[in-house]
């Protein structure tokens, strides 16, 4: 009973923070970090938010990744973490709270030198497995991997059994390109001839025309195809904060779920689903 009361009080506090109006005199700093594919969406949103809330300064360092950002929030080093995954029970036990923000297509991104526009899941699995060494245009296929524990890797494995096997085979190869962070992996795709990776579409939209976004099984990855359900492979985005998070956090989260916030997010590849 006591714990239940505590929980209610905590939620009330968070909600109070979210709904309280900003004050110009309060020069609050809101420290946000998280997955790279989320931050590229947060960045235009933060700029728009700060225009509306001059007393709030949003600081965004180089992307830490979901886990690091969640840990940082837990250690009060951040105020809000954009996570590509849901909280683990242990993380939840530390008093963190989360809400779903939205979904972005997990798109097949290829180097711009790759002339193909379309790829099937089967072909993609063969490329990961190494059985298809070249693109139809003749370029060598260079798969860019993510860490095995990374959310993107787990999502890719869940796409099909062939992809799971292909990824396992690719992980065993020594010649694979490995991008520790979203940005690093994106840079590999961008700069490496024949490179291909499964990454959030938000990254590609943050730097238009820097990479070749391929149709998967004939479906163009986009917010529309995701919202319509045609494009099945998505990466969910969560917002994680502490229960005692500053009010600016709630204010910013409210902005994210606002119409304007949704619109900006959609333009940058994120289909905001809101709190569930």
């Amino acid at each position, binding site marked *: 009973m006591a714990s239940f009361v505590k929980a209610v009080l905590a939620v009330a506090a968070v909600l109070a923070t979210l709904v309280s109006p900003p004050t110009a005199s309060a020069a609050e700093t809101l420290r946000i970090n998280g997955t790279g594919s989320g931050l590229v969406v947060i960045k235009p949103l933060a700029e728009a938010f700060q225009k509306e809330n001059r007393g709030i300064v949003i600081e965004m360092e180089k992307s*830490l*990744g979901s886990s690091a950002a969640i840990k940082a929030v837990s250690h009060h*080093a951040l105020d809000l973490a954009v996570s590509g995954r849901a909280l683990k029970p242990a993380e939840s036990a530390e008093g963190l709270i989360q809400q779903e923000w939205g979904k972005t297509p997990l798109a097949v991104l290829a180097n711009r030198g790759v002339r193909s526009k379309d790829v099937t899941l089967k072909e993609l699995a063969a490329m990961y497995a190494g059985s298809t060494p070249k693109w139809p245009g003749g370029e060598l296929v260079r798969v860019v991997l993510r860490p095995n524990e990374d959310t993107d890797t787990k999502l890719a494995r869940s796409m099909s059994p062939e992809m799971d096997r292909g990824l396992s085979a690719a992980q065993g190869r020594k010649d694979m390109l490995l991008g520790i962070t979203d940005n690093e992996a994106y840079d590999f795709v961008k700069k490496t001839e024949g490179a291909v990776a499964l990454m959030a579409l938000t990254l590609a939209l943050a730097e238009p025309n820097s990479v070749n976004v391929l149709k998967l099984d004939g479906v163009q990855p986009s917010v529309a195809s995701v919202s319509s359900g045609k494009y099945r492979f998505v990466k969910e985005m969560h917002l994680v904060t502490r229960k005692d998070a500053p009010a600016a956090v709630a204010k910013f989260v409210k902005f994210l779920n606002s119409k304007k916030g949704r619109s900006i997010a959609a333009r940058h590849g994120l289909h905001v689903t809101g709190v569930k």
Partner: protein
Amino acid sequence: MIRHSQSIRRSTTLTAGILSAVLTVVPPAIYFVMAFSHMTGVIETEGEINARVVGTLVVANPRMWEFEELRLNELLARRSTETAEKRVLYNLKGQVIAESSDKMLPPLLSKTFPVHDAGHQVANLVVSRSLAPTLMVTALLFCLGALAAGFTFFRLRTVPLRAIENAYRSLKQSEEKYRSVYESLNEGLALYRTVPGSGTDIDLVLADMNPAASSVFGFGRDDIGKSILQVQGGLFAPVREALQGAPAEVSLELTQEGAGRVFVVNAFPMGDGMVATLLEDVTEKKRSAEQLEHLAYYDSLTGLLNRRMLLDRMEHTIGIAQREGLKMATLFFDLNGFKPINDTMGHEAGDQILIEVGRRLKSSVRKKDTLARLGGDEFVVVATLDTEDNASCIAQNLLRKLSPVYEVGGREVYVGASIGISVYPDDGTTPETLLKNADIAMYNAKKPGVEFCFYSAQMNQKLQERTRLEFELWMALEREEFFLEYQPIMDARTGRIAAVEALVRWMSPEKGRVMPDSFIPLAEATGIIIPLGEWVLKTACTKLRQWLDAGCLPLRMSVNISGCQFMRSELCRLVEEAAEQTGVDLALLELELTETCLVKDVEETAAKLWHLKGLNVSIGIDDFGTGYSSLQYLKNFPIDHLKIDRAFIRNVCELPDERAIVDAIIGIAKAMELHVIAEGVETLDQAEYLAHRGCDELQGYYYHRPLSEERLLEVLRQERERFEQGSGAGDAVIVGAVPTQPV
């Protein structure tokens, strides 16, 4: 030796142990050090690289990097090898920021690498690898090394030590063996150590001795350490002198004055500065040797040289004679009259005679001459001379010395000598030849009236003939070349054949028929007469038995017995054997002896004759009248008949003297109731006269020559037929009617 053995054992064990320890420890140690070094190098390289990679992440986000656990883990998990490893990233507070760890067995080798940001250390990366695989391989190498070390230890220690122990055991056994020999030697063995003496001399210091040296030669344990000059009163000092500058063995004969002992010392270097002296007390040996030499070269009775020494001296003298162009006479003495003295007065008397003869001869010969006794009563004098006349002088001189009377056992006896002389180089050039020829000449000197005789070639020829004949006689006996002829002896009263005399003949393949006069004397001289007489007796008995079995009328068989045979053989046993083997009635056997047989040893002769008489054998005297014709033995001996010698019969009708002798013999015989036989009857007048004078039986060519067996049997058959036809002729004397076919 034991000390050396233990030292070698310790050294070998130590060496083997060190090598084994090296083999056990060094390979795994080297491996471990190299593997450790390699691992350290790898860890340092990996750590450096990983620290830089982590540092890049830190620099990218210096404030938030500690929260990037996943990315850091991913960075830490980047490995260049499959080797299990543990990488832990600590912040400066020592908190674990990220970790990548494989399963590893302790212990771990860890290295810490600082992670910098803008020159400041912000974290520590600890990279660890397991030492377990390295330690396991090290342990495996250690085990393999231990096995190899064990084998090496065995090979290096056990095998050599076993070989050394075997060598020492063999050495010990050898030493014990030689020690036992050393201590059981009858000869004394003294060991000396050479030490530098005064100047260049060496001195010998007694080091050890065997028991014989102590017991026999008087060495004492106190003598050990003394100089050889001080031991035994310096008796062995000459050994020291002899060894100076003489590295080889020296042998000395030393005499211990006073004690009269003689030592032979053999000294020889043993190496290692030791000298062994082998001492042998040869006093007795020398004495024995001298005695043996004396026995070997001297006649024990007279002290004169024996044959062996004589031959040596002759060889020597021949050499001198050859060089100086001299002649050498060999005088071979044989004493006359010695044998009767020896036989009648005993051997002691004979020995005294020989000693005296030796003494007299010795006093007569010159110093440079050689006098020897060959054995029996034979002496030899060898003298160098200028002419053979000198030899005559020497012989005459020696004979003069020998001729004086000898006194033996209180009696005076006379001994003469016959001397045969051979002269070098005329009669031979070797001692053996000269001796043989002198011997031959000596036999020639045995003739009456001859005292000494020089050798001539004819003598040798006769001797050779005699030798050849002797050989032929032996061969004849073996080849059965002898045969018998039988001369009938007629009963003067009945004219019938009363007996036959068996006469031996020899049919030589080379010479043809040989008469007894040619070979019987030699057979007697050589002893062949013994087996020959035995053969005659047995053959005669066998034939008589055959004739009787064939139906002949009983007749006596007369067999001549040589004097030699009578004296030397076991005649009685022989007669018994002949009777037993042939089954002949011994009453039909007559043995004819010569008078000389009977007078030699009266007692033995009487015993033999009475023994024969006991066997029912008739005994007759052959050739009566030519010898002693002693009436004494006619009286004492069991004589059955007398056979008047043919010499008296030949002229019995013409010469009154002969006739008187024959009459006397017949008269004596009749008076003594002896049977009388006349041999050599060749005419009717002789037969009639003898029959008329009472001669019982007649034998001679007038009746029958000696007949072969076949012819005799024919004669006997004819006689039997004649008597069967005229059996009523009565007892008239038919001396003249019987001879039908005188041959």
